[in-house]
């Protein structure tokens, strides 16, 4: 079904410009990275550094009238940049799943969870409604959601943020995509849910060999999850390194600044020993 190339997603020379009243303005430039099967690539940078623009341009979600995307984005050898709406829609959700920062805003409030979940499954597969429902329940059980059948009948606003984010992960994972783009998946959640969501993401990675592009400004999330890290500033990549290398021996000034901005708990023993 899927080719066994180690590079699932390759972004080269990505350059995104937006047309404004005052002429073209560059959002990101010279973006190069590769995403390997079963690996987690962390994308770090402060707000406004171009992290989300990069992920949106991979999925061609930016407004084509006002933005121009140059460069090449290949998913298993297939060029994504410039695909028309119909073709890219087949890829979104199936081959590349997208987990957004704010789970509350990512669902339509007027339809039930089940409605939206089953629609996603059915638009990408030939399953009938009953089979799709079974698949949905199965996927929700995998992320430890209690009583999935009941949840499918509830509306998004009836669920807490942490639960909705898990529903979104279940939706993202149930079609076994080759890439998951997780844009700040835990930022809106409290500490306890944060670790839970990361656990589920990692479980999906381990089970299906999904590659994850993990976008976060939280170096805690990055240090828990990432294999390699790309550091962005002002729309450019300033450093790419293995996560251990990056934390032990940061090269770029900006990376050092980010690492210094971490809030460190000053007490005797490292926190993780207390688990």
């Amino acid at each position: 079904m899927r080719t066994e190339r180690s590079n699932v997603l390759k972004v080269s020379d990505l350059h995104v410009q937006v047309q404004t009243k005052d002429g073209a303005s560059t959002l990101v430039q010279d973006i190069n990275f590769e995403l390997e099967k079963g690996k987690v690539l962390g994308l770090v940078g402060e707000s406004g550094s171009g992290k989300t623009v990069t992920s949106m341009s991979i999925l061609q979600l930016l407004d084509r009238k006002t933005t121009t995307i140059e460069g090449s984005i290949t998913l298993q050898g297939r060029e994504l940049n410039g695909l028309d709406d119909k073709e890219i829609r087949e890829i979104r959700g199936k081959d590349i799943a997208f987990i957004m920062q704010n789970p509350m805003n990512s669902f339509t409030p007027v339809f039930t969870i089940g409605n939206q979940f089953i629609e996603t499954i059915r638009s990408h597969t030939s399953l009938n409604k009953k089979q799709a429902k079974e698949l949905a329940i199965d996927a929700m059980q995998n992320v430890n959601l209690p009583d999935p059948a009941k949840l499918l009948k509830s509306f998004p606003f009836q669920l807490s943020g942490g639960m909705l984010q898990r529903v979104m992960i279940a939706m993202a994972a149930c079609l076994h995509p080759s890439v998951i783009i997780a844009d700040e998946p835990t930022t809106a959640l409290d500490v306890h849910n944060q670790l839970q969501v990361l656990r589920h993401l990692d479980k999906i990675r381990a089970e299906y060999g999904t590659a994850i592009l993990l976008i976060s400004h939280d170096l805690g999330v990055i240090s828990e999850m990432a294999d390699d890290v790309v550091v962005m500033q002002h729309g450019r990549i300033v450093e790419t390194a293995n996560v251990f290398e990056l934390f032990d021996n940061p090269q770029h000034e900006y990376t050092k600044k980010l690492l210094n901005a971490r809030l460190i708990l000053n007490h005797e023993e490292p926190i993780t020993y207390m688990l």
Partner: protein
Amino acid sequence: MSLLQVKAVTHSYNSHTFFKWKDHSKKVLTDISLSIDEGTCLGLLGTSGAGKSTLGKVILGLERPQQGQVLFQGHDIYTADKLIRQKIRRDLQVVFQDSYSSVNPRMTAEHIIGEPLENYEKLTVAEQKRTVIELLERVGLSEKDLKKYPHQFSGGQLQRINIARAISLKPLLIVLDESVSSLDMVNQTLILELLNELKKDFGLSYLFITHDIKAAYSISDTLGVLEKGELIELYDSKTQFFSSEHPVVKQMRGSILAEHPRFRSLPTRINKT
């Protein structure tokens, strides 16, 4: 004397349904007592739905508790005279989590920060503008931002404007309800540093409501843990948080994310180099 005292506050929300014979009230705060001294910061930790924000609202005078008292400098904020309450409203400021919904989208930054000054201080137009510029610079923005509207700012910048508005009247206590949670790390650290400076300069006190243990730890002097509407732990010194044996606190400690990949806790990610 403590600046703020909360005495045995109990509060519940009633959901109004068509059929009234059922009791639909939901208890959100149970017998909460705490105090904040002048120039100190109380960090209030808790998971979502624990009642942190409700307690913040009760302290701000926005939600009258069903039982108990909130004393600010010895005055009950719900029953004091009108003049005293006016003074309390000046001395008690708030910064919320969602920076966009805490400002009027039709106002410029100058107007947003200037509004409390207009209400409480008798300044000339030029003086007020100068004060607003000083406040903007104090929170790391500049004169250029005066005429901008909220949608032209990033979340972090807008939160700075909210802080500038809160400190504009030199209050005594600021309730910070998840104020740094939506910011990125660099901005978070900068805002926490700013808050620490302001605390020293003006002798400010904070009630720092958050779910972020690291942020609470870095700014607080005393620390409380709220769980399901009950204040389960209250520490005079924040380091006690790490020696507590309470199961909820233990679970909280367990979910702190690693500071370095060496300390990661996800089982399948360990030993991956």
